[in-house]
């Protein structure tokens, strides 16, 4: 009978060998020689979709693309434009933007990042097959000389500069694309501080310092490893046990349990992504303005924020957080349950049922529970309908089978993009295609206000006032705090208001 035992084990082990033989670590083997302090390990919530900036729409990709791709324009922590691969830029007139490029920049494959390369990339971003729509205003790109490029616009667009800090501004090596355009999706070649070593899907991305990076002394770490950990508790756990150095998007409240320890630095930032109720104004009962206004004025954001963020984060009555340059002080509390109830009573709509699609996550369910109780008091019955992310997106944006969707507006580098996408009747995010002439003419005016930020901010105040308090086109709820934590030897982190951290700045003190 011993033979039988051996047989059983033999089979098991043989099959284990045959399966596990294809272990995928050989590629990364070389990185293990690096000293511990020269390697920074980050835990991030989402895996990459594609390394090709023009094919992709997930906002979660950016943080994984930034190390590899420098953008033409950069931004500071307040989301104001800063020099990137373009050292400076200037509007020659309302519809001509001239970029002056940095000299001596090369891509990871050794090719030169010059005017030709920029024109190639921008033309690619505006081409038919590109998913990018931020550069719709661009009519043509002119290469003046090696280091000067002009963008000719069909109409003025105040968001163009910061659009070049987003996907559209990520410069990819022309040679690499021409050699094999499909390859870029899996292994990008940019001019950023890090080059790609390996992308192990669902597991981690490994980057190595690019020796010929134009900015000498950067990056400071030799190896950057970004591990994919979708579950926030897992990210907390891994940080707690020291398996990683840096963890992103940690849960409010829970994080206070880490803060007792001297081992960790916790940074709470405020960022533009806003949790909100998307409303399809073309569908019942949200075609009734009274119902929308009741939602807008019937939700106590401060109480909601306190209950789900434990004193961190902030309540939202507009799509901008209080530290953002376009924030309007006057629009800071719309909560007025008496008014909300009165509006409903006047329209004889007390007891209206509003179906809200939401994600089946613990956090979202908690929010829905609170909304249900708050809105019950003013006479609206909330019917929560849990849908996982893709089902929710299809149902709300495509089939339009649910009137409201509790999700997040992930924010854009320029407020003009946010305002247009949330308020304009032709925007994908305005599912009911509802807007007013006044709002749309204000949006056009803001697009043409390229050199006067104060005026732009005033226009946005006006749009928000009309769009939120009079029309209730969408219902902002809260700004989730942007919490990261790192072991104390990790330096260099700067939160940015986009909520998309640039991991290339992280390094460890030896």
């Amino acid at each position, binding site marked *: 009978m011993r033979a039988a035992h051996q047989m059983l084990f033999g089979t098991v082990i043989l099959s284990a060998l045959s399966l596990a033989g294809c272990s995928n670590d050989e590629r990364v083997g070389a990185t293990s020689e690096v000293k511990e302090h020269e390697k920074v390990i980050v835990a991030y919530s989402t895996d990459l979709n594609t390394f090709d900036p023009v094919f992709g*729409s997930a906002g979660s990709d950016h943080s994984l693309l930034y190390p590899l791709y420098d953008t033409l324009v950069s931004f500071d922590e307040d989301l104001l434009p800063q020099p990137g691969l373009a050292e400076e830029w200037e509007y020659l007139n309302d519809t001509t933007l001239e970029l002056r490029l940095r000299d001596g920049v090369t891509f990871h494959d050794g090719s030169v990042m010059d005017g030709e390369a920029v024109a190639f990339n921008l033309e690619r971003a505006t081409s038919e097959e590109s998913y990018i729509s931020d550069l719709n205003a661009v009519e043509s790109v002119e290469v003046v000389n090696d280091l000067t490029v002009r963008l000719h616009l069909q109409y003025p667009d105040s968001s163009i500069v910061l659009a070049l800090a987003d996907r559209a501004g990520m410069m990819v090596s022309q040679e690499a694309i021409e050699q094999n355009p499909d390859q870029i999706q899996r292994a990008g070649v940019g001019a950023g501080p890090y080059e790609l070593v390996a992308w192990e899907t669902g597991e981690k991305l490994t980057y190595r310092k690019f020796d010929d990076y134009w900015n000498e002394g950067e990056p400071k770490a030799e190896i950057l490893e970004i591990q994919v950990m979708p579950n926030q508790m897992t990210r907390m756990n891994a940080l707690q046990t020291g398996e990683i150095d840096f963890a992103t998007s940690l849960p409010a409240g829970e994080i206070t349990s880490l803060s007792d320890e001297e081992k960790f630095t916790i940074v709470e930032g405020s960022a533009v992504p806003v949790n909100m109720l998307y409303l399809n104004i073309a569908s019942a009962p949200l075609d009734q303005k009274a119902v929308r206004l009741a939602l807008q004025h019937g939700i106590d954001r401060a109480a909601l924020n306190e209950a789900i963020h434990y004193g961190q984060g902030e309540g939202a009555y507009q799509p901008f957080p209080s530290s953002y340059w376009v924030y309007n002080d006057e629009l800071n509390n719309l909560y007025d349950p008496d008014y909300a109830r009165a509006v409903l009573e006047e329209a004889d709509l007390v007891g209206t049922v509003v179906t809200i699609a939401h994600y089946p996550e613990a956090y979202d369910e908690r929010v829905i529970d609170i909304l249900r109780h708050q809105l019950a008091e003013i006479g609206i019955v909330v019917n929560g309908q849990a849908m996982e992310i893709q089902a929710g997106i299809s149902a709300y944006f495509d089939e339009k089978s649910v009137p409201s969707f509790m999700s997040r507006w992930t924010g854009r580098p320029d407020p003009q993009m946010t305002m247009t996408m949330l308020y304009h009747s032709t925007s994908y995010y305005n599912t009911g295609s509802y807007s007013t002439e006044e709002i749309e003419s204000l949006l056009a005016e803001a697009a043409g206000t390229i050199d006067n930020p104060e005026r732009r901010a005033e226009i946005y105040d006006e749009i928000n006032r009309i769009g939120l308090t009079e029309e209730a086109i969408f219902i902002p709820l809260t700004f989730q705090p942007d919490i990261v934590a790192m072991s104390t030897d990790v330096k260099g982190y700067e939160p940015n208001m986009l909520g998309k951290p640039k991991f290339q700045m992280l390094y460890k003190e030896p």
Partner: protein
Amino acid sequence: MFLRFLTKRLLYVIPMLFITTFIVFSFILLIPGDPALAILGENASDENLAQLRAQLGLDQSLLVQYWNWLTSALVGDLGESFFTGESVQEAVFSRMGITFQLVTTAIVIAFVFGTTLAIVSMMKPGSWIDEFARLVSTMGTAIPNFLLAMLLLAVFSLSLGWLPATGFISLFDDPIGFVRSVLLPSIALGAVGMAQITRHMRSALIEVFETDYIRTAFSKGLSVRQTIFHHGIRNAILPVVTTVGILYGNLMGATVVVETIFSIPGIGQLAVDSIMQRDFAMLQGVVLVMVVIIIVINFATDIIYSLLDPRIKYE
């Protein structure tokens, strides 16, 4: 004789694979949510959508889609992920390698501890270890694996800091790292198996002890130890082999939750992600490979069973 058995089994398995993949295929298309829409996001204009759907083959009828998939699969091409462009077979095999190592460790733990516990408890009936064995065999089946996983994680990783809380290291890269990374998740996975094996082993041993044959042997001075090792294990090995076979199937499913808790990039996570993302190409590949593996294991179990079963009879 053996060959005929083999051919017969194969003839049974092949049509089953067709049926399973077809069921899964038609089923996948029932899942609401359009992958093209998910990929395009805000850029989902009607033309873009139509173009991408055509590119992914989603605009064709179910039968055509299945036929295309099948003909490629037969020549070993499972396609590419809708989202990441990664080759499905590469992804599935590397992830399956991870899960297979995890599940196999869980089963080895279950087997070693389960049989040991059963044998020791039979050698000292009524002792604390016997009581413990009974407790394990009843409680083990009642504790949900994710609860056990959280408990182990909280105690051994977060509080004591002895073992890592996340990740997986392959046995072939670093055996010690492998054991450290896989210990907690495989205990969480294997607890049920351990309980089942203890249980089957115990009852098989009891059965042997109660046969007239052994009673006679006892009266002639046969020791408990000899009984267990010479006769008991023979009798117990068949149900244990069956249990191990079934466990593989069960744990391949149960691993979904445990992989999530320990952030192990195995096939279970890949399956959940592909369902959530509507990455149909990937999901189809995952299910195909899982089903093939389970069928192969069932097949192996059958063969081992038939080899082990020379009609041992005591009555």
